[in-house]
């Protein structure tokens, strides 16, 4: 079990380090939380479009407890996220079979998706 947790922590760190410098990104929850999950929000990105643009990376929106609801996560709102920030939240989950290459791909896809959607939005330079 210790080996599994170490594996998860390493993957989570690779993922977070790969996206932490995205402008406006926010880590939801503690950096010392369960190592198999990383939930982030980013300012001014529409969540449904972000989800589609991340394919084929399988992620979820919002917090786990709100995964079947279209409403902004009450958990994320409780920790101070605005409705807009909550709806852009993406939950990455890693597990025993997850590889470093997959995590690196996820980080690359996330950065690309955020950049593309921001360039597409009114008020941002193309």
């Amino acid at each position, binding site marked *: 079990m210790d080996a599994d947790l170490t594996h998860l922590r390493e993957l989570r760190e690779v993922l977070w380090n790969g996206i932490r410098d995205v402008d406006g990104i926010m880590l939801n929850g503690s950096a010392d939380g369960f190592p198999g999950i990383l939930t982030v929000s980013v300012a*001014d990105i529409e969540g449904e479009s972000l989800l589609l643009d991340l394919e084929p990376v399988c992620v979820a929106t919002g917090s786990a407890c709100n995964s079947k609801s279209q409403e902004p996560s009450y958990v994320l709102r409780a920790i101070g996220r605005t409705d807009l920030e909550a709806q852009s939240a993406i939950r990455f989950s890693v597990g025993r079979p997850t590889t470093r290459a997959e995590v690196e791909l996820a980080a690359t896809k996330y950065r690309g998706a955020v950049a593309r959607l921001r360039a*597409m*939005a009114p008020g*941002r330079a193309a």
Partner: protein
Amino acid sequence: MSSEPYNPAVRELFSAPAHVGAVDDGESSLVVDQGVRLQLSARFSGGSIVEMRFKAWGCPHLIAAAEWLCGYLEGRPIGALEDFPHAPIMENLAIPMEKTGRILVLEDAVRSLGQKFGDGS
């Protein structure tokens, strides 16, 4: 019943839009409503829409619809701005009923653009 929320047309238009941007020397309209933001801009010449671009903050259906619409209107007479292709958009993109409001935002932006041209003519 399929659980796939996006048909192939939406996926294609969303992933590879050719009309994102703004026309520098044309008219533009911006609509903020229904939880989305949509900017349309167009350049007119010789009674036709020669260039049309969009910028959108919203769901994939809105982005796909805006892309589809720009491709549809480019090359058409300016009068086409008054005849919003609601049915083709809804059908071709299989827009779910709960997102009808986003398409209405697109229609508002088109009509606003048409009114601006009319004001400048």
